């Protein structure tokens, strides 16, 4: 049985956090999707709240402290990523953005990503499409079609996994991510292992 690494980044600030709750549900849906495809999942959750100081320090010093470096590595090395943020002022939170700002360039190239967001009311739901999805498109990730938004009221509505309910959207999104992860071999190119020999450097970037 193949194993797949799943990284979950959650930017909820309160504890307990509904953002974390959504992230966990999305992770379960992805794990069960991968299970149906014959793969086991190793999931690592990164709670950005725990790294808030280190993230600011990284912005100022240019390097990640040990704990943050481990969190970044878990995302870099994962076959797929779930990224969930609360919506603040019509967009992802600053903490959420900071994590992806300090992630080494190229880390998400071609990586399957499932995005989710939470907010107090459903009026913020399109922030997923106009703010979060473009961020990951910029980072060259492959974002699954279903993005999952959970307003406070969603946690109390909806019955069994009918397609339009929160549960239904979670299952669909998890399946979509699982399918991409099952066939993914995404991973950043290590510049040390794929060193450009000096002969090529000297010929310059234009030469073949």
């Amino acid at each position, binding site marked *: 049985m193949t194993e797949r690494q799943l990284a979950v980044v959650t930017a909820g600030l309160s504890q307990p956090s509904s953002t974390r709750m959504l992230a966990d549900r999305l992770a379960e849906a992805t794990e069960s999707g991968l299970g149906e495809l014959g793969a086991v999942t190793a999931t690592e959750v990164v709670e950005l709240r725990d790294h808030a100081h280190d993230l600011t320090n990284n912005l100022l*010093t240019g390097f990640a402290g040990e704990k943050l470096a481990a969190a970044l590595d878990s995302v870099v090395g994962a076959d797929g990523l779930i990224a969930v943020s609360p919506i603040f002022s019509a967009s992802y939170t600053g903490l959420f953005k900071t994590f992806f700002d300090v992630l080494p360039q190229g880390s998400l190239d071609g990586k399957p990503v499932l995005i989710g967001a939470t907010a107090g009311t459903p009026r913020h739901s399109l922030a997923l499409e106009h703010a979060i999805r473009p961020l990951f498109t910029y980072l060259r990730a492959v974002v699954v079609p279903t993005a999952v938004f959970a307003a406070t009221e969603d946690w109390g509505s909806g019955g069994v996994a009918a397609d339009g309910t929160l549960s239904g959207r979670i299952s669909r999104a998890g399946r979509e991510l699982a399918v991409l992860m099952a066939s993914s071999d995404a991973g950043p190119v290590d510049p040390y292992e794929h*060193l*450009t*020999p*000096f002969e090529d*450097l000297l010929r*310059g970037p234009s030469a073949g």
Partner: protein
Amino acid sequence: MQFGVFTVGDLTTDPTSGRVTSEHERIKAMVAIALKAEEVGLDVFATGEHHNPPFVPSSPTTMLGYIAAQTNRLILSTSTTLITTNDPVKIAEDYAMLQHLADGRVDLMMGRGNTGPVYPWFGKDIRDGIPLAIENYHLLHRLWREEIVDWEGKFRTPLHSFTSTPRPLDGVPPFVWHGSIRSPEIAEQAAFYGDGFFANNIFWPKDHFARLIELYRSRYEHYGHGSADQAIVGLGGQVFMRKNSQDAVREFRPYFDHAPVYGYGPSLEEFTAQTPLTVGSPQQVIDRTLEFRDHFGDYQRQMFLMDHAGLPLSTVFEQLEMLGGEVVPVLRKEFEALRPAHVPDGPTHSARVSAARAAEASDEGADAGTLEVMAESVG
């Protein structure tokens, strides 16, 4: 093993007194620090090159020439010379001139700079950073070694029948280090030429630099300059000392907390744990510096940053006296005892002249052959 100080040349208000330093004062202080470095028995003084405030050293050879006239032993170097935005022809001329004036006590370190707008200010594109460093240095390397140079590249006017003057002292160009904090390409470049590689080391965790140095060493061997452990490595370090470590921490903390590079970020304790910064007693500095060898192997040059973040000149002098009086003599002895016989000492002009004469006497040299073939195939 060579020990020295390198200065960024920043104008920073002293956070404890609010005292503002003038450019004139800072420039004179940098000179005084160099003279002090020789006085306390250090081997090297290096200055940065910057083209924007709050930094003063835009013109390294002017400063180093002035220092050369007032010193006898000190090696004068840079940290770094901008190989990207300076004209390599002017670097060849300026540093050959300095080399003559200083009787060979000159080497230099190539770097790409860390201030984006310097590129457009000097008519370059920052996206060409690596290609500029590669092409410009290749030309510089030739200008110092070939009497008459015909050359065409992407980034500067072609040269036909050009001779860079003065020719390097004794026909031996200044030793060159290549400094980088994140680019494997630069480690590869240093290895190709058999030049030195300098890992600034001070602001980042050691694992990062260990990887760069390991790459440089293995490629140095690959290009036939010697075994990996014979590659020429320099490291940066940053220390603040008092007899009692608690006093050092108490006195340095406000400078750390407000420092331009890491101020308002991690705590002094976090930063000293994560990077080579050492704030404590001379013995702690000795122990920490000896550990560098465990991480990076035997190396040839250790530079210390001593004069930044608004520290008063009188304090910097006290630091230099402790460094030269208590720390470096012990480090010299310890490193020397540990260094295997086949690992070279720090590069000096006289040693390089002897090596060049010995190579001429025996054969034409395998690495010179490689370089000529490369130069022909690439133009």
